[in-house]
Every structure is written in C-alpha cells, then in structure tokens.
C-alpha cells in the first residue's frame, strides 16, 4: 500500500463544489498537503472521504476543520472516520500553546524586585539558621552524650582526608605558577631571589586558605546541600523530627564542625604543597637549590603570616558549610529544587568567603600584621 494524501476540487453538475480527498490521511502523510488545504478558497459544499484509504485523528481533524470553515458536509466517511470525527467534534480550542510571557519592560523590573525581596528574606533566613545552630551547639554542650561522634568522624574523612589529593594537586600547580610568573616579573629588577618571599608569604597568608575554601565549597558545600536537600525531599528530615532527633544536631552540627576543624589543616597543607611547588620551580628554572628555597622560607616569612592564614581558615569553613547546610534545609517541593539550591550553596559560599577575606586583609594590616 502506501501512497500520498491527495485532494481535488470537483465541480458538480448542480453547481456545488466537492472536495475529494484520497489516499492515506495520517499524521505521517499530512505534511505535504496541509499547507494547500489551509489556503483553499471559494465555496465548498461537500467533502468526500470515500477515497481515503487510511485515516487517523489528524486526518479527521483536517477534514473537520475544513468542514467547519466552509460549512461543508462530510460524505462517504468510513465507519472509522465517522467515529474519529465524532470524537473530535467538541475539541476546538483557541488556547495559546506557550505560557503567556510578560513584555520585557515588565519582566525585568519584576525579576529585579523578586531578587531583592528574596535577598532580604534570605538574610533573615541565614541569621535565623545561625541562631538555631548556636542553640543546638549550646544544648549539645550541656548534654555532651547526645553528640554524634561517629557522624563527625565520617564528615571529617569526607571533608578532609578525601580532599587531600585534589587540593594537593591544585596547590602544587598554583605554587609553580606563582613562582614562575613572579620570577619573570622580579627578574626585571634583578630580584629573582625574592621569589621565595613571594611564594612563601602569598600562599601562607592568602592563597592557600582561599583556594582551599573555594575547593571545599565546590566539593563539600555542594555535597551538604545535595545530601540534606534530598533527605528533605524523601521526608527523612521530617521522620527524624517525629522520632525526636533534632536534624540540626544530627545533620548540621557534625558537618559544620567537620568543615571548621578541617579547614585550618587543609589550608596549611595547601600552603605547604604550594611552597614545594615553588621550590621545584626554583630548582629547575631559577637556580635556587630545593632545600635552600625551603630553609629561606623560614627566614623571610614572618610567623604572623601563618597565624593570619590559620585564623581565617575556620571562619571560611564555617561560611562554606553554613551555606551548604542552610540551602539544603531550604529544599522543598521537587528534585529541581535540589539542583538549584546546590548551585546557590556553592555560589553564595564562595562569594561570602571572598568578601570576608577582603575584610580580614584590611583588619590584619591595621593591627600591624602587614
């Protein structure tokens, strides 16, 4: 079988026009004739379907809408065609397929207003969450038996130990880049040996901790948001509450503590590996022997640089973990929300870390640790 959908306009002896359709009128064959059928003009009294070999709802719909347009009568319809046409009679609609869209001049201010409003309520939310966290830490201090050591150790492993390879690799490469690029610039003053100062001070004071915080936000902050968010969706968090377990104590406190405890260690580790990276560049490109580079670090880096890094690290850990847990707990509705909240956790975490870092930089310089 097969063939094409065809049509012909026949003038009858009594002056009326008959539209004769023939061949298969199916969704797969309608394409080529549909355009022509839409532009038919003049008078049509009858539509003859007796030549139609196959018909489905699309064919029936086309016949129906022509008959409606010209007020024509359908004749010669097979039993199947009649059944389909009968089913389609009451299905006309003018509804738009796409969702209504506001014009740009309304949409843009609307979006900005919504963002601002959400930012305000988000601030309240974060402050409230911090308060709830402090309360549960307080109650844990009074009832230390309730503290979940196992969960804490598990999170310490996930946040800290399993991050060692990637943070190590990242820091090593950053150390190489700083030393190499720094040496190129310093060579213009004939001061390549100051590369040691550059690498040592910048990694211990700033970059080690900052890059680690960004990495932890990407690895663990997102994981916190996704885990807690999924648990909210599956109503695990609600189940905990009904059993009498505080989700704050069971889920949030161990994660935040793990990040706060691990960040100084990871930050110091990162700075150390970066210095080793710098020393490798010194050995092979600057003519500074490897061990000399490392011993020079002790002389040129003041001890307070180390303190600056180590003091900032737990604060960054707190911010990153807080962002992850807060957004995780905010998940409600559907799985799409989990993805959205995870992204927000990482973005706000990193953003807040960089803002706080700027304040720290000014603060430590002012107290004379410049």
């Amino acid at each position, binding site marked *: *079988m*097969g*063939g*094409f959908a065809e049509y012909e306009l026949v003038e009858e002896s009594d002056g009326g026009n008959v539209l004769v359709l023939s061949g*298969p009128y*199916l*969704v*797969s*064959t*309608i*394409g*080529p004739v*549909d*355009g022509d059928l*839409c532009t038919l003009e003049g008078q049509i009294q009858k539509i003859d379907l007796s030549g139609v070999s*196959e018909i*489905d*709802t*699309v064919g029936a*719909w*086309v016949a129906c*809408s022509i008959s409606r347009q010209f007020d024509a009568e359908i004749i010669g319809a097979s039993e*199947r065609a009649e*059944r*389909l046409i*009968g*089913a*389609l009679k*009451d*299905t*006309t*609609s003018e*509804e*738009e*397929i*796409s*969702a*209504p869209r506001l014009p740009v001049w309304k949409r843009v201010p609307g979006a900005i207003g919504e963002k601002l409003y959400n930012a305000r309520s988000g601030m309240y939310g974060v402050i409230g969450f911090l308060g709830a966290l402090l309360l549960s830490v307080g109650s844990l201090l009074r009832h230390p038996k309730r503290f979940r050591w196992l969960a804490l150790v598990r999170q310490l492993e996930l946040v800290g130990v399993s991050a060692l390879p990637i943070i190590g690799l990242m820091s090593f490469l950053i150390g190489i880049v700083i030393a190499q690029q720094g040496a190129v610039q310093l060579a213009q003053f004939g001061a390549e040996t100051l590369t040691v100062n550059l690498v040592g001070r910048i990694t211990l004071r700033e970059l080690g901790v900052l890059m680690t915080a960004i990495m932890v936000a990407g690895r663990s902050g997102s994981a916190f948001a996704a885990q807690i968010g999924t648990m909210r969706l599956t109503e695990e968090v609600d189940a905990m509450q009904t059993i009498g377990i505080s989700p704050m104590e069971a889920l949030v406190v161990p994660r935040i503590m793990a990040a706060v405890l691990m960040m100084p260690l990871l930050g110091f580790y990162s700075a150390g590996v970066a210095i080793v990276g710098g020393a490798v560049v010194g050995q092979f490109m600057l003519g500074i022997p490897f061990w000399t580079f490392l011993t020079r670090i002790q002389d040129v880096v003041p001890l307070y640089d180390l303190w600056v890094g180590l003091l900032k690290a737990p604060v960054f850990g707190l911010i990153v973990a807080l962002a992850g847990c807060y957004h995780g707990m905010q998940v409600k509705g*559907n799985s*799409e929300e989990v993805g959205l909240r995870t992204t927000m956790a990482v973005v706000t975490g990193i953003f807040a870390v960089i803002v706080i870092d700027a304040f720290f930089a000014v603060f430590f310089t002012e107290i004379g640790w410049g």
Partner: protein
Amino acid sequence: MAQDETGRDLERHERFRGEYPIVVEGLTNRFGDQVVHQDLDLKVRRGEILGVVGGSGTGKSVLMRSIIGLQTPAEGEIEVFGRSVVGTDPEDDIGIRNRWGVLFQGGALFSTLTVGENVEVPLKQFYPDIEPKLRHEIARYKTILSGLPEEAVSKYPSELSGGMKKRAGLARALALDPELLFLDEPTAGLDPIGAAAFDNLTRALKETLGLTVFLITHDLDTLHEICDRVAVIADKKVIAVDTVPNLMELDHPWIQEYFNGPRGRAALTAQALDELRKHMDKPLAANVVKALDKPPAGKA
C-alpha cells in the same frame, strides 16, 4: 525500506494488520546475578487491553522497558509490529517508534515545556513538515481528548495535579496517533474517582482510536473494568494470560491470593454492583443493590 523521492518511507503509514502486534519469546533479563525474567513468552493481541500484573519486583516495568527498547535483554526475541526490536540499530527502529506511545509512571513530562509544547515534541521530531498552525491545533485537541480542560495547554507540568500530569503524559503518548499504547501504572496515586475516570478514558480512547493497550497495573478495579485479558507474571515467567474470571479459576497460590484476597473480592463485588445498577428498573435487582450497599449490621 521503500522510499519515495523525498526520502519518506512508504511503509510507515500502513496500519499493522497481523494478529499480534507484540510477540515476546524466550525473554531473559538479568541484572548481575539477579535473574528477573527467565524464558518469558507473551503475545499481545491486536485491539485488546492487556493488563499486566505481578508482585512488586517481578519485573513488570522491566518487561515494558524491554519491549520499548530501553532495556536490552540478555536473551530472547521481541517483535513489535512483526519486526524485531532486539539488538537493532536505533535508526532502523524509526518506523516502529513513531507507532507507539508510552505513558511513564510519573508522567515524565518535560518540565521546561508547557503541556501543549510537550505534545508537540514528538510531532516536531518525526514530522517536521507539518505546518506550525496545524501542529498547534493537534496539540490542543489531543490535550482535550485526554480529558484535560483547554486552559491546561499553556500550563507547565509543575502547575498540574498528579492526575492531570498523567493525562498530559497520555496526551503526549497519543501525539502521533499510535497503534500501540504502553501505560505504566496509570492509576497509581490517583483518588478513586480520578482512577475510575482514567479507566473510562483509556477504554474510550481504545475503542475510538482502535488502540492496542499494554497496561501495567496494581489496580484491581482497572483489571476488572477495562482489561480484556490479564497476563500474570510470577516465577520469572508469564504464568497465565486470560480473562479475569478464567484466571480466578486457576489453582496458583499467588493468583488465588491476588484475585480472591479481600481487596480482590471487594473489586469484584463493586463490579457486580455496577452491573446490577444498569438494570435498576428491575425491582429485584434494586433490592439486591440496596441490600449489598448496606454494610452488615454486625460489622458496623
């Protein structure tokens, strides 16, 4: 495959005339060491609603996924419309895939598109030469045909209730006027009124459009009301395919427990009551219905 000069294949619009649109022979499915199906046979007759039942984890959905090509079986042969779907190049399936519609359990609507746009997706994919105007019209009438109000066309799936999502999924499954319709637990999670309405819709669509329906369900009312035959999956095989009354005669422990358990009997009674109500003008029947509708005095 014969093609005309524009590259469209000519066999595509020939309706399947054979007796069995789906033939499954010797199907074996394994996940690691766990055998889900072992040597499973099943034939679906043209124009019937075949219910598929089985306990949880017996592989009802896996069977459906094997037939529609989402799961490659370890062994066995599956023919749809007389053509093998196992191990064939997806490009060759194209003449089969536009002839079936699938309604997944959760509706599986594309969440970034409105209901109308969802219905248009298969049309755009398979028949890009259909004018946008006609395509919009098709999307509208399919939505209404699936029992949704016309305003639903421009709504996003997130704005719909569970029952409406299923209907929207059905509208998309029907977009290409398929001959074969797969429904995976269509009434799960619907309230009894919504479930009954969906059953009626399925039956009406099957009769109007001449569909063959492969229906996975746990709903005993659905089985009694609309299924022409029921396939029972147990012991990794289809152990019986028959009408519900005939299945109830069978002496298999699972079948007996399923159909003659308290819920099975309740569904049966409900159906009997419906039958009786149709003859309400007869005084005897009316009395029987009255008597059966009243709960036994002792139990209340």
